[in-house]
């Protein structure tokens, strides 16, 4: 039981190493993490260089605090980082099923729960690792250029973001288990990055939504959000529902692939 799970985890690990995901995903998050502290730091120089401002023109910039910079980095992760993460994760199960690799796995005596969980564990571990190095890089530059932040708050922020990434991976794998690759990527993009955008536009009307986890996480640097615990509970239940549904659809499609192969 444990042995086959370990073998499946090893297979997924090899997959992220061979596809270079282990290299470029952390690098992308580091890039996103340091871009905001740096652009804000050089904003005046950038305006002077490209702005073509009239003589004597002066512009006051809002004073950037360390907390706003980290919130900006979080928003970078939420837009570009999430889109890239969704595009890679939402094909993990369906691609195997479509190119025939899946059948080699499906005829073996491994449980569907293990197949799904091995993918979810490796995908979320990679996402969490990437976001942690991204936040570490952002924190390094922020502290260097703007001043210190609350250490406990920073750890809470990263932990909250990790929970959010686990949910994102579960949603992507659920889509991948249920639909073909193209449909899965479309549905996952509507559910995750576009969902985040919608929540940012209209989110003032509700407080409890997993899309707000990242914002509440960044708020830990200044205060504890009153809605955090309830949102956290709601998010964990959504996470569990997604995993259970994902296992169900993986099982259904596994039986279909197997019966098609028998014929």
């Amino acid at each position, binding site marked *: 039981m444990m042995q086959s799970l370990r073998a499946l985890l090893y297979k997924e690990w090899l997959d992220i190493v061979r*596809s270079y995901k282990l290299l*470029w995903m952390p690098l992308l998050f580091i890039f996103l993490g*340091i*871009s905001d502290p740096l652009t804000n*730091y050089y904003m005046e120089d950038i305006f002077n260089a490209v702005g073509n401002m009239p003589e004597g023109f002066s512009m006051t910039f809002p004073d950037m605090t360390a907390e706003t910079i980290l919130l900006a980095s979080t928003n970078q992760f939420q837009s570009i980082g999430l889109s890239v993460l969704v595009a890679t994760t939402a094909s993990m199960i369906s*691609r195997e099923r479509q190119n025939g690799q899946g059948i080699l796995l499906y005829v073996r005596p491994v449980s569907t729960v293990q197949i799904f969980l091995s993918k979810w564990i490796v995908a979320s571990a990679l996402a969490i690792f990437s976001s942690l190095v991204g936040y570490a890089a952002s924190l390094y530059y922020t502290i260097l250029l703007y001043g210190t932040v609350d250490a406990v708050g920073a750890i809470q922020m990263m932990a909250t973001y990790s929970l959010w990434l686990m949910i994102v991976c579960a949603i992507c794998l659920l889509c991948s288990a249920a639909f073909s690759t193209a449909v899965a990527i479309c549905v996952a993009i509507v559910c995750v990055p576009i969902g985040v955008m919608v929540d940012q536009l209209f989110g003032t009307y509700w407080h409890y939504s997993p899309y707000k986890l990242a914002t509440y996480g960044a708020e830990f640097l200044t205060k504890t959000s009153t809605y955090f615990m309830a949102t956290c509970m709601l998010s964990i239940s959504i996470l569990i529902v997604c995993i259970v549904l994902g296992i169900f659809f993986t099982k259904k499609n596994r039986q279909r692939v197997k019966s098609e192969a028998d014929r």
Partner: protein
Amino acid sequence: MDLNVALLAPIFIIQLILMVVALVDISRIHATKGPKWAWVLVIIFVNTIGPIIYFIFGRKND
């Protein structure tokens, strides 16, 4: 000036690593989705996101 170089160096290093790894991979890989030369142009001329687009969409996973 030295401070600026030190601050901005990581960005160039990240871009360089991504570009070099993508180019090494494209020289070894059997075939890509779409013409190889187009991907080489994308990797070299689109900063940062170019190599990543290649890794996501250009590689044939077999």
